[in-house]
């Protein structure tokens, strides 16, 4: 596979970065400086003066990141040194943008504020990550509970559809809880699913890869081995139908396909899976209005009919207008009009950042995500144990796929979905899930080096 030079070269390149906790400390310090600068720019631009409130948005996340760093020093000293600063960078940028939108909301006389809540949720999520690192000394323990994880994931997935606690927001049934306190269990479910897939696939690796008969030159697995795949295809369509959310469905199915492919090395699964997914979605678009409308809006967002329709392309088009306004270098934080985009603080935070930081900022943010995902793949690549490999790959891929689906949706590359932008968007469940993923990846990378010794 030496001809796959681009992707194979990158892990080698990144290997040059020392795995030092000191290096990580320097990066955290530096990233924290970027956050302080962003917040200061926002205050100066919108309020014309800097106020002590800046410390409220800057201090707690920085302190918590340092706590995570300290826990790593103590309990996972060999863990990857880039992931924490990269995730912290994104998280802080998200807080800055949400704070900026809060100031615009206050200026307009509104009171729908998110930034303080986001600060505390970020700290909470990072502390949970620290706790995971502290109490899960060996992730291989997770291997013992694949079916419990799978069952828990299914329960979590179905919770929003349950009476009383289930809630439907913007047409998608993804939340549980009350108005004050709501939670998206689907975000946590993706971790449990990755654990389940990794555990299950490692035990069935052989039969899925080897046994089967040839049909038209393609090796087709036995029906018995194909069963779980079909089951999962139905499950993800079920998510699509019950929860009315295309994004979650794509995310789970994509995760599943990639993990099956990695475990077995057979492209057949990806090919068959994609065909099933596309067929399923097309059939769903026939029977379900909301899926059909999503597609119409995606194909022609700028038509007046779609633009002015309820649930039409207004939000998407406003986001694209915003990004276009940003041009190459952006309007500067506080200089644009991201508040014109509905839900700019959550679903459309990518467009809001694109407007104020420009194409340069968009490239940097995407590059940070890509680097984060590559670190995960690198951990998978270098880990001696198959379960760890699969789990690291699944967790890294799920972040990458989610960014692709969200950013692609915001820019009109894909149909718009209800997924959140990892680390950036306002919302506790997403922060908690993604920080937990970082924690798991850090543990795996730590164990990789330990077992290499």
């Amino acid at each position, binding site marked *: 596979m030496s001809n796959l030079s681009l992707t194979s070269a990158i892990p080698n390149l990144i290997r040059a970065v020392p795995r030092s906790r000191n290096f990580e400390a320097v990066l955290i310090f530096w990233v924290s400086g970027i956050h302080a600068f962003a917040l200061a720019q926002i205050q100066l631009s919108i309020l014309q003066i800097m106020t002590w409130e800046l410390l409220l948005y800057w201090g707690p996340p920085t302190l918590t990141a340092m706590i995570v760093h300290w826990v790593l020093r103590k309990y996972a000293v060999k863990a990857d040194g880039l992931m924490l600063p990269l995730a912290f960078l994104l998280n802080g940028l998200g807080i800055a943008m949400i704070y900026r939108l809060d100031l615009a909301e206050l200026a307009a006389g509104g009171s729908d504020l998110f930034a303080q809540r986001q600060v505390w949720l970020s700290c909470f999520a990072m502390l949970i990550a620290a706790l995971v690192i502290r109490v899960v000394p060996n992730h291989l323990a997770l291997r013992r509970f694949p079916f419990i994880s799978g069952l828990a994931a299914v329960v979590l997935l179905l919770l929003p559809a349950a009476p009383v606690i289930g809630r439907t927001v913007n047409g998608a049934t993804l939340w549980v809880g009350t108005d004050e306190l709501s939670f998206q269990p689907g975000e946590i479910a993706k971790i449990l699913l990755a654990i389940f897939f990794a555990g299950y696939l490692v035990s069935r690796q052989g039969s899925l890869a080897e046994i089967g008969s040839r049909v038209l030159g393609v090796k087709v697995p036995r029906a018995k081995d194909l069963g779980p795949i079909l089951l999962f295809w139905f499950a993800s369509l079920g998510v699509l139908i019950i929860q009315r959310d295309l994004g979650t469905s794509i995310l789970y199915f994509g995760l599943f396909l990639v993990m099956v492919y990695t475990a077995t090395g057979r492209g057949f699964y990806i090919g068959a899976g994609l065909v099933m997914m596309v067929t399923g979605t097309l059939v769903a678009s026939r029977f379900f209005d909301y899926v059909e409308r999503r597609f119409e809006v995606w194909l022609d967002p700028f038509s007046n009919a779609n633009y002015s329709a309820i649930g039409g392309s207004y939000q998407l088009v406003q986001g694209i207008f915003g990004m276009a306004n940003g041009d190459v270098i952006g309007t500067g934080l506080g*200089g644009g009009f991201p508040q014109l985009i509905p839900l700019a603080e959550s679903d459309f935070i990518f467009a809001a950042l694109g407007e104020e930081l420009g194409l340069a900022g968009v490239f940097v943010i*995407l590059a940070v995500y890509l680097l984060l995902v590559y670190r995960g793949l690198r951990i998978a690549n270098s880990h001696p144990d198959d379960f760890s490999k699969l789990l690291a790959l699944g967790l890294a891929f799920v972040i990458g796929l989610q960014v692709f689906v969200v950013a692609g949706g915001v820019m009109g*590359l894909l149909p718009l979905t209800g997924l959140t932008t990892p680390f950036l968007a306002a919302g506790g469940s997403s922060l908690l899930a993604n920080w937990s993923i970082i924690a798991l990846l850090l543990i795996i990378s730590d164990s990789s080096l330990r077992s290499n010794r």
Partner: protein
Amino acid sequence: MNRQVRRVGLILTIMFIALFAMASSIQVIRTGELYQDSRNVRASYETYKTQRGAILVGGAPIVTSRPVNDDYRFLREYESVIYSPITGYYSVFSGTTGIERSMNSYLSGQSGAQFFEQINALLDGTPVTGAAVELTIDPDAQRAAWDALGNRKGAVVAIEPATGRILALVSKPTFDANLLASHSYGEVVDSFRNYSENDDEPLVNRAIAGDLYHPGSVFKLVVAAAALESGSYTTQSSFENLSEYVLPGTTTPVFNSNGSTCGSGESVTLETALIRSCNIPFAMLAVELGQDRIRAQAELMGFGDELEIPMAVTPSLYPDGMDLAQTGLSGFGQFDVRVSPMQMALVTAAIANQGVIMNPQLVKTVVASNLNILSQPQPTVFSSPISRETAGYLTRMMVDSVEIGVAGRAGISQVAVAGKTGTAENGPAEPYTLWFTGFAPAEKPQIVVTVVIEDGGGIGQNGTGNQLAAPIAKAVMEAVLE
């Protein structure tokens, strides 16, 4: 399994490359189209954030932006209505005109010259402050022209001939820019409707961009210049002195304005014809010269050119493909000859400035908020349409017009004023268009003034250029020469 991991990496890379490509498409390739989409309100919001630069005359601001507590952040305020035709208006509801429009990139701080300020603004988040634009207008001349024109419809243009600087630019009737710059939507819409439905077209700057006028006798300056430049004529070249001249190929007679011959004698010189502003000799001269030669002279003087001062000046017109009779009529500025007052001022400036026309310019300096000078237009030559000698001959004849001829009302004691009147017909029963164009002092000209009065100055076919237009020019010249 590592092979698969690398392949997954490849898939992810391809997915991200698609995102990079899509972002580039939106933020670079399609920006213009998206920015101009009528549903995109950012374009208009963006401009409100900037405190527009002031417009100054004689060092004092005449247009300023005052911070106010509403969505539009700053209110544009216009000090005096006499500058309205120059400044135009900056309205958040009904567009932008005049200097506000032509100099918008400076006033709004978006010009390329303010690049580093824009970068600073990007970093510290404070919007760029617009640059101030200082005009070449002489407030005394502007005020004198405004007052002297009174309540007549018309325009006055005054130029410093050696530099092309515009000293006065008046157009009446005009508008109150404050009514259009208001932040009350209803008020602006009502005012705009009132102004645009008014038959007197107060929103139009007649000096540069109104309907073009028949020049009448002031066009004789162009014909005389063409004759002298041809080399076949001198000021003493003579024409048969008739009291009625039938245009070649027709039975239509033309007359001198006094209805008789041009002075006594069998023949009349070019000099006398110009001083007395006789039509018959000039009709004959035009027929002899031919339309091509006259057109060539007119075009050298700027006819047909799209001047920008920096507002666009409507090109003046000397028609194509005329027969001999029409050419004859064009000799004294009738038929389809059409000019703007600015164009007649340039013709006069050529004579005043020894044959050289300087590009007319309204902007003296552009100063950024940090007092850097961003632009300071230097005088540049527009054309050299006539020789120094021709300019000298024409000057002498124009001085004589004022001293002993038909432009006497422009005379100032102790100062040699050069001038030419015009009383153009617009149709059998239509009121005249009254003209005066001239300069002073004749030996070292400091100011060229062109005055046009529409609708016969309110007295139909009874007024003449000398009676109504010349005194206005005199007042403007006095304001500058004092």
